[in-house]
Every structure is written in structure tokens, then in C-alpha cells.
């Protein structure tokens, strides 16, 4: 787990400084979620849940949102991804893209539901069209590129 701290710092720096210049319409890929997916493939569901919680808390600390928002979706996504990775993992790019897209969309949906619950009702359609869907698409596309790099590809293909 010595890689976790550099990975968390790397994600923080990339997400806060590097990615804003690559944003499309103000939307950036969610590297923290990709990190959750990556660790989930390598860990048991218990560890993936705790790492998802930790990664989410870290992301919340670097965001203007309430602490716990991304931690909730991170731990849930970590658990689900680790639990289902045996059945769902594939090295087919298109299938991997759809998996990442689905995971990112679910994570966005959970975040939206929590925001609605805690901060009051928000219009669903604009959030879906201009935030959740583009973020999921961008995250899945970037995730596919990253996970296609040999070191990450090996990490993903390894024993879960």
C-alpha cells in the first residue's frame, strides 16, 4: 500500500491543477473514481470499501462539498467494483469503456441523490445532461486510455 499516498497526492495535483486546462465545458474526468476502480480490482471487497472511503474523504477535503459526499459513493463503488470485478472485468476496450461509463454514471447518480437529500431538491435533467453524463463519458474515455497503458493494464489483469 506504499503506492497509495503518492497516488492520492498525484490525483489531487492532477485534478486541481492539470485537468482544469483540459476540461471540456467545465467538465473534468474524475481521477479519484478511476483510482477507486483500480484498487478495487486488486483488493478484497472489505479493503476496497475502506480505500474507497479514504479516497473519497481525501477528494471531499479538496472540494467545496460536504465531507462524506464522495466518501459515500467511493466506498460503495469500491465495494461493488471489487465484488463484481470477477464477473465483469474484461480486457476488451469497448466493454471496459461501458463498464467505466456505467460505474461513473452510478457514482454521479449517488452524489446527486445525496446532494438532493442534504441540500434540497435540484433540477434533475440539467444535472444529468450537463454534469453526470459528460463527466461519466469523459471519465470513461480517460480511464480507458490510462488503463490501456501497460503498467495499469497489468495491474487490472492481475488477480483480484
Amino acid at each position, binding site marked *: 500500500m506504499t503506492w497509495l499516498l503518492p497516488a492520492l*497526492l498525484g490525483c*489531487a*495535483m492532477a*485534478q*486541481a*491543477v*492539470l485537468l*482544469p486546462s483540459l*476540461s471540456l465545458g*467545465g*467538465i*473534468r474526468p*474524475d481521477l*479519484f473514481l478511476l483510482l477507486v476502480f483500480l484498487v478495487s480490482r486488486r483488493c478484497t*471487497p*472489505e479493503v476496497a*470499501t*475502506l480505500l*474507497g*472511503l479514504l479516497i*473519497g*474523504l*481525501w*477528494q*471531499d*477535503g*479538496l*472540494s*467545496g*462539498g*460536504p*465531507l*462524506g*459526499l*464522495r*466518501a*459515500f459513493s467511493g*466506498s*460503495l463503488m469500491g*465495494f461493488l467494483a471489487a465484488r463484481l470485478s470477477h464477473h465483469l472485468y474484461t480486457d476488451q476496450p469497448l466493454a471496459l469503456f461501458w463498464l467505466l461509463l456505467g460505474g461513473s454514471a452510478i457514482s454521479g447518480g449517488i*452524489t*446527486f441523490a*445525496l*446532494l438532493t437529500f*442534504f*441540500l434540497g431538491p*435540484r*433540477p434533475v435533467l*440539467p*444535472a*444529468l*445532461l*450537463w*454534469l453526470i453524463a459528460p*463527466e461519466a463519458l469523459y471519465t470513461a474515455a480517460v480511464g480507458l486510455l490510462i488503463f490501456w497503458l501497460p503498467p495499469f493494464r497489468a495491474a487490472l489483469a492481475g488477480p483480484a
Partner: protein
Amino acid sequence: MSGLLRLLARYRRATILTTALVLSFLLMTLQVRHESAVVTLTRQTLLFLASPFIQITAVSLQGVADIWHDYVDLRGLREENKRLQREAATLKGRLDHLEEQALETQRLERLLGMRQASQAEFLTARVVGKDATNWFKTILLDRGSLEGVRRNQPALAPDGLVGRVVEVTPTSARVQLLTDPVSAVGGLIQRTRVTGIVSGNLGAGTRVRYLPLMANVVVGDEVVTSGMGGVFPKGIPIGRITAVERRSGALFQEATLQPAVDMSRLEEVLILTASETRPGPEASGSLESGTGRRP
């Protein structure tokens, strides 16, 4: 007791997941009604740990961008004529550098002009990072409590309001932009003196809410801060109305607003650290009664 432990161990997967979810939920609950000391301390610690790395990355990135631009300039020109173009590239590199400096000076002069036009005390801060998610609109500044930055101080740009400081560490501060979905700023239609609440929205742009149904609001109206709420001084430009919606049966009308400041291009901001302010001439219609006070 041992029976309970055995049960938890048997269902440890579900136990860990439930604990993680409940803990997250509890953290969010603690922040909804009032500020929790634990949550504030946790947030500040996380930000304090990350901000030096973010600041170093921002500075390094700027350095790399400068080198890259110089390299691109040189290489492109060498293809046409080696010696002359190398000279031209050098000159262009210098010109770019000077232009960049001139633009920076221009921006800082505008900030300085704004500072001089007011009786308030300002602090100039550089934007070093943005929010770690797409869901919230905040920026990270390279100034913190050691230099006098405090929570709820307004952040301004030459064109108008940027937002307010929501989190401070000794060396950095987080500013919630007025486009953030959780932000709410008291706004005043400059032409008709009608008040409303300017707030961000998830994916739906910036809105002006709670405008009286019969109020005269048209596209192109300028909106300035109303001074109500005590955080923002009165008369700071917020933006311009781009669309007005009057839904049948609704108690209020709403409007879409184009912020005066382009939040995606912010490089420096002014933090209003003390006292009354009399912002630029754009907001002059509302300045006479400006009695903004910090909380």
C-alpha cells in the same frame, strides 16, 4: 459479547460496508445544520496537507508551459530560415514574455485601480488550484490566515464579484465561487432596485431566484450585490441577465445570469480583508448607500 464479535466477523463484509456508509452519512449530517468542529478540523487538515503540493505543481506547471512555448516558437521558426528565424524566435519568445508581463501588469494595475478607488483593504492572491470535483465550484488561493485571510471575506476580480472565502489554512484559502451550487448571494437589479438571490446550479448556469413576480426585469439588466446578509458589500457587479422566466402559477420569477467575471480564466483575485468598499464605476448607481460590513 463474543457472540456479537463472532457475528460481526461472520458478516464482516456487510459490516465494513455499512460502517463506511453510515460514517459518511453521519459526516454529511453533521455539516447540514451547523459547522462541526471535527469536520472543520478534518477539512482544514486535509487542505493543509495537500495545498503545498498543489502550489508547487501550479508553479512548476507555469514554468513548464513557459519552456514549452519557447520551444514551440523556436522549432516552428527554424523550419523557415535557420539563422533569421532563430533570431526571430528569440525575439518572439521575448515578446511573448513581455506581452505576458504586460498583461499581468495590466491585470494587476486594474486590481490596483480598484484597490485605490475604494477605502477598503485588499490582499492580492494567486489562483493555484480548482475544485477536486465537477460538482462544486471553488478555487484554491496561495494566501492564508498568516496573511490575514479569514472566512467569509469577499473575493473580487476587476470585473466584479468572484465569491467568498469558505476555508482557510495558514498558507492557503478556498474560495466558493458565486457559480457554486451551494452559493447564495443577495443581488440587486441595478436599474429597478429589485432584489433577488443569485445562486449557482448543477449544470443549469447561474440563476437569480426569488424575484417578485411583478418586478420589472429584462434581458440585459445589470445585477450588483445588494449588501444584505452582511458578507458582501453593496454594489459589487455580479453579472448581466440573459433570460427571464415567468412560470404560470409560480410565486416568483427567475432569471439566468451571465457572471461579470469569467471564472474559468481567473488567475489572480482580490480578497477584501477589511472595512467599507466603493467598487468601480460600473456599480456607481448603488454606491451612495454602500455600507458593507464584514461579519
